[in-house]
């Protein structure tokens, strides 16, 4: 046993400030922070426009951010200057972390934490013709639990990521309403807020997989879905504020991005459970998720949850925008098309083991995956290791929430022989996730969207896992 540690026996890594000076520094920092916040209408410390100072401007905040970036840059002092993995700070790895002091508090991260330099999973972009009209997949293969880190949330943009000053952003609400209004972000944040854990999924998730297995990993086959804690104002609160006129049936939601993305939402859905979300996982939503505010339409195809929301127009009919006519409609074998196929139906996928992984040797493995349904809560998930001949009920890891990713697991003893792993989700309405064949029989091979069929992973005797179709 070593000597008990006594504070005085541990020399400080660098001369520390006296408690008095420490307090001064903190107060200075706080004063600067408050000075900034008091001029920011979106801050709880906002003092109003009667201040003698000019209104808060973005350059001021940007300088602050640059300062933070510079602080992060100084990590080179502490560590090796090399390319850190995205979202990480590259630090020198000592032979024994118990023999040297670690990195001081707020020394190199600018006050905003970074993930470990040893973690490398990132979103991957689908190779569309332009980067602005494109999408990126969440790395589900590394996912744990039910929540997607904000920085790994999947993306789908039609005109790039809009950069919007929240102090200048306004949301217009008009059309068949009693009093047309516009709302600043400060206005929106005055309303009673709520938070709700919900998945969102692009209806194009899996579009490459209809006819044959195409993408290799679960990131490619299923990565267009993510779960966050979304915080904001119920849309019904705002619609009650402006007052709907009789005959109001549809609502146009319009984004403030270069695509000026638009979708029509049925008014019943708008009043039922839609959210104007300005928060995500405990902080402001990310720019790529629609900062400063997005619409969130629970359980419906992701495209309807308009980002960078700038306008809502109430009408008596759908607007028939490009994204609800020429896109996001499902072409049937007879040449007709299904329109307004809003619902994201029950779906599940095994994330471990999944495509391109290798099981080194026979023995115990915990099968793990995600299940979700736009109709409500997941009631049951069943897993097969023999291509659907036998099914076992998986354990659901709570909380099991409606319209939310639900983690499931099943212990599995792999005997070293070829196996086909599948999962199927049954939701609280009794809907059972179909096979891909059942969907193809119903809808043909041209409908593009809404593939929620059962995914099959083949484990070869060698332990190699591959994406296969198996009915």
């Amino acid at each position, binding site marked *: 046993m070593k000597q008990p540690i006594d504070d005085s026996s541990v020399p400080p890594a660098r001369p520390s400030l006296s408690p008095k000076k420490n307090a001064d520094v903190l107060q200075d920092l706080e004063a600067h922070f408050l000075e900034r916040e008091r001029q920011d209408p979106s801050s*709880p*410390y906002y003092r109003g426009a009667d201040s003698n100072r000019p209104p808060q401007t973005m350059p001021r905040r940007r300088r602050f951010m640059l300062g933070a970036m510079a602080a992060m840059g100084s990590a080179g002092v502490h560590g090796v200057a090399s390319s850190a993995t995205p979202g990480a700070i590259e630090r020198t790895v000592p032979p024994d972390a118990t023999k040297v002091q670690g990195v001081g508090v707020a020394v190199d991260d600018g006050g905003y934490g970074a993930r470990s330099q040893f973690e490398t999973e990132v979103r991957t972009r689908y190779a569309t*013709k332009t980067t602005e009209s494109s999408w990126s997949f969440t790395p589900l293969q590394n996912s744990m639990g039910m929540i997607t880190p904000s920085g790994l949330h999947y993306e789908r943009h039609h005109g790039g990521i809009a950069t919007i000053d929240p102090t200048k952003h306004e949301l217009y609400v008009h059309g068949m309403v009693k009093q047309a*209004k516009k709302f600043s972000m400060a206005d929106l944040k*005055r309303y009673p807020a709520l938070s709700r854990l919900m998945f969102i999924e692009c209806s194009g998730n899996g579009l490459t997989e209809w006819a044959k297995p195409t993408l290799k990993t679960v990131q490619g086959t299923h990565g267009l879905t993510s779960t966050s804690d979304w915080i904001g104002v119920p849309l019904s609160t705002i619609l009650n504020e402006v007052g709907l006129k009789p005959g109001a049936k549809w609502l146009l939601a319009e984004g403030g991005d270069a695509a000026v993305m638009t979708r029509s939402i049925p008014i019943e859905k708008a009043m039922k*459970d839609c959210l104007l979300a300005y928060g995500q996982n405990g902080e402001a939503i990310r720019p790529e998720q629609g900062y400063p505010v997005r619409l969130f339409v629970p359980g419906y195809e992701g495209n309807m949850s308009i980002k960078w929301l700038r306008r809502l127009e109430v009408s008596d009919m759908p*607007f*028939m925008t490009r994204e609800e006519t020429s896109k996001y409609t499902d*072409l049937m074998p007879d040449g007709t098309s299904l329109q307004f196929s809003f619902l994201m139906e029950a779906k599940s996928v095994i994330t471990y083991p999944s495509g391109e992984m290798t099981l080194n040797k026979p023995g115990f493995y915990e099968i793990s995956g995600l299940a979700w349904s736009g109709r409500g809560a997941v009631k049951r998930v069943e897993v097969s290791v023999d291509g659907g001949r036998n099914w076992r009920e998986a354990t659901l890891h709570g909380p099991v929430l*409606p319209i939310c990713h639900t983690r499931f697991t099943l212990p599995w003893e792999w005997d070293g022989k070829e196996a086909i792993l599948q999962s199927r989700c049954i939701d609280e309405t009794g809907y059972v996730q179909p096979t891909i064949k059942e969907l193809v029989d119903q809808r043909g091979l041209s409908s593009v969207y809404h593939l929620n069929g059962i995914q099959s992973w083949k484990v070869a005797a060698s332990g190699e896992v591959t994406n296969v179709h198996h009915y």
Partner: protein
Amino acid sequence: MSITIKGAVAAAAMALACAGAPMAQTSTATASSADNPHDYGFGSPVTDDELKQFVSPLPDGRGLPPGSGTVMQGEKVYTQQCLACHGANLEGGIGDRLIGGRGTLAKSDKGGPPIKTVESYWPYSTTLFDYIKRAMPFTAPNSMSNDDVYAVTAYILYKGDIIPKDATMDKDSLPKVAMPNRDAFKPAGR
């Protein structure tokens, strides 16, 4: 002081949320906060003038702005604004193919995969005006005048054999254009 007020607001918010249970995270969370309306009075009234900056026509033509354009004018606009991405013959490139494809949508049709274009697939002519107006050209969205948008809309519809060469498109004529695939859409019911 401001913290106290904020706390009070938050408490009121929680009370409201509980009272109406609008989106409580339970498996039966379908009740609407419409059950519990409250007159907050936040937000500012807007004038009709302010709303003129927005264009979002309905399929029956309501909401279409003034202005007009001919096929001939549209050809010039297309050459300057659209051709680089959509091709000299509207065959597509970086941008979508715009014409052709009739008779390719059904499985029984011969000749490979379905070709979805303005001509073969789009059910409403107003959508074409709306989309070009708000999102095109890709490198300078919402930069074209209403006249130019009407004109290039007319040109694309003409090239798709939907309107005659001497047609003029405006807020009255555009919604009357009969799109070939108009009746092929039905609600999915899910």
